[in-house]
């Protein structure tokens, strides 16, 4: 595989052909914030947190789905990007009901981590306070829509790794919700194998293990990528 060299934030970097900007950056210890990206499943470019500037183009490009091009000059940390990322996180907090103090993921939540990483100290938008349900019909797991950021990581991991496609998205815009099977309660979704991959994948407290304490909600998200890699090596 051919090598590519390009520049990120004034640092010269080599990458393999076909690699994304995000992969190459991470291999070199350059962090770009992400939310919808999850190692081991396909990328959808939906959260827009990984947007970067590429010299010579006004349009911002998502690092997670943009392949590296020889000699491209990428900036990941400009004032414009920092401001937009902060706004995106603020919009997420204002969109649903994120009350960290009473959330099972408190302290183990990627949304919290992102808020800290982008320097969000308050939310400049009014909270929408939508009515969101909690579904605890599944004997082992639960879904609390108040915490869902619609990253669709659960949808992809269940479809692409577990292979059963229990999760999907229904509705449009602000009314969009993740659903199980044909919008049945999770406990009645016949396709679910109770494998727990979606619990591992969820970045927030939206999908949780029932009865778990906050301390037990720490998730090893590398497991998904590990499973995928292990399979690929065996086949």
């Amino acid at each position: 595989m051919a090598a590519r060299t390009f520049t990120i934030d004034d640092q010269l970097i080599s990458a393999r052909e076909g690699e994304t900007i995000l992969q190459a950056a991470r291999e070199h210890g350059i962090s770009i914030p992400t939310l919808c990206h999850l190692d081991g499943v396909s990328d959808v470019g939906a959260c827009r947190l990984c947007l970067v500037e590429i010299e010579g183009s006004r349009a911002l490009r998502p690092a997670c789905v943009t392949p590296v091009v020889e000699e491209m000059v990428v900036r990941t940390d400009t004032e414009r990007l920092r401001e937009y990322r902060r706004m995106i996180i603020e919009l997420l907090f204002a969109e649903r009901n994120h009350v960290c103090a009473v959330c099972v993921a408190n302290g183990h939540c990627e949304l919290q981590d992102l808020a800290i990483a982008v320097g969000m100290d308050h939310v400049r938008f009014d909270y929408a306070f939508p009515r969101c349900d909690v579904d605890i019909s599944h004997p082992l797991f639960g879904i609390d829509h108040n915490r869902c950021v619609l990253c669709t990581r659960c949808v992809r991991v269940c479809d692409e790794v577990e292979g059963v496609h229990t999760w999907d998205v229904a509705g449009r815009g602000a009314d969009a919700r993740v659903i199980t099977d044909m919008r049945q309660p999770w406990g009645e979704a016949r396709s679910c194998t109770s494998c727990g991959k979606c619990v591992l994948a969820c970045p927030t407290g939206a999908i949780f293990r029932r009865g778990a304490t906050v301390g037990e909600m720490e998730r090893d998200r590398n497991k998904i990528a590990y499973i995928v890699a292990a399979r690929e090596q065996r086949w």
Partner: protein
Amino acid sequence: MDISELLTIAEHERTMRRPTCIRCCTALGCQSAGSLSLKQRLEEAVAEVDRTDIEVIGVGCMGMCGHGPLVRVDPDGVLYEHVHAADAPSIVAALDGGDATAPRGDPQHPFFTLQKRIVLENSGIIDPERIESYIAAGGYQALYCVLHDMTPAEVIDVVTRSGLRGRGGAGYPTGLKWATVAKSHGDRKYVVCNADEGDPGAFMDRSIIESDPHKILEGMAIAAYAVGADQGYVYVRAEYPLAIQRLQRAIAQARRLGLLGAQIFDAGFTFRIDIRVGAGAFVCGEETALMASIEGRRGQPRPRPPYPAESGLWGRPTLINNVETFANIPPIIRNGAEWFAAIGAEHSKGTKVFALTGKIRHTGLIEVPMGVTLRQIVEEMGGGVPEGRVKAVQTGGPSGGCIPAALLDTPVDYESLQRVGSIMGSGGMVVMDDATNMVDVAHFYMEFCKDESCGKCIPCRAGTAQMLHMLNLIRSGQATAADLARLEQLCIMVKETSLCGLGQSAPNPVLSTMKYFREEYEAFVRDEGLAG
């Protein structure tokens, strides 16, 4: 089918014509005003006077839909408007002298005379339900000529040199798109006609299909030959039942005559067209969402590249063009690239169809050469606003913006409209008078975008909801000057970070009204001192 058979059909159709032809509009606008029963009464009235030299035919849209139902009596070109079924006998009697009870329209009105009809050349003239009517107007000859006398590369060259740009909104050069699809490798290729038409107030594409469906099929077949596709889809929304019905009929007729299907014109070219009916979501007009919908998946966009030209339907090279873009193709092939390139403005060749609506005397469908000014359209063709004065013209629908009256001399071409903060868009044109509040206008479009956001990406999903909320605060007098600044900042962020064109353009109506009518926003803003 060969060319002589085609010409025989055309000749036969012409010889069957009666000297006098009463044309009654049966496109949706006039149908909803009762033109079907009117047409029936006209037929009965002709039968009653026992005249075999008169025929009554149902035709497509004549343009001045706001004055419908419309009837035109040819060859004299007498136009009647607001015609009721009860007027039918008097219209027939008027052929022998005397006055019809229906009001006379003015075919010499600038509404008609300032038009240049290429896309709509057959609209209001031929019977859209009969393929013979289209063939008699020269239909399918361009396809024959392409299949027998031109290589695919030559076809693409003609389209490129014509300067035609996509009429679906963004104005991408059509020839370049075709060339890219032609060069892409795939075991199969597809041609898709985008007839989703989700913009509120727009009805151009629907009218074109209802009035001249074969033209779209012929344009698609020529495109398929040029890029090497063998399967086409027309993606049309379920809210357009008449358009769907006429397309279905047209496809069946074309197949029966061997103008679609295998071995078209015995040229070794195979092309099928199927209809895909969409549920009617604005975002499904976006090309990657449209393809997902055709494939049977949730209609939401994905990041591009890869572009459809490279990896489209089922991962294969796919050409997607708008209805009006395809409708331009047969005339371009028939008359040549130079003919087309001589019409219009420097970087915007040809004509554009607009659905002219809002506070204006003559609403309806017009086709004008690019480069005419907004003032000519609004004041001369549209007859100006009935009461008060023109305040602004909105073009481009929810993706576009409001152009203030002071800029009415802006020519209608892609670059000029963009320069004043709007876009050509697909052809919706809404005239607003001075009783219109521009914050309300921005609110209307934002509400639309918020409802139509697919929800996949955060800036658009949460941003449109938040912008709508802020507009509500402004309208209820609860916002401060700082809120206005925040709204503007949010608009720019959503524009620059959203995944697809919906989110990228949703802020445009707000930004353009804030730019030109800022005082109307400020009038709502409460005293800073009161802000807690």
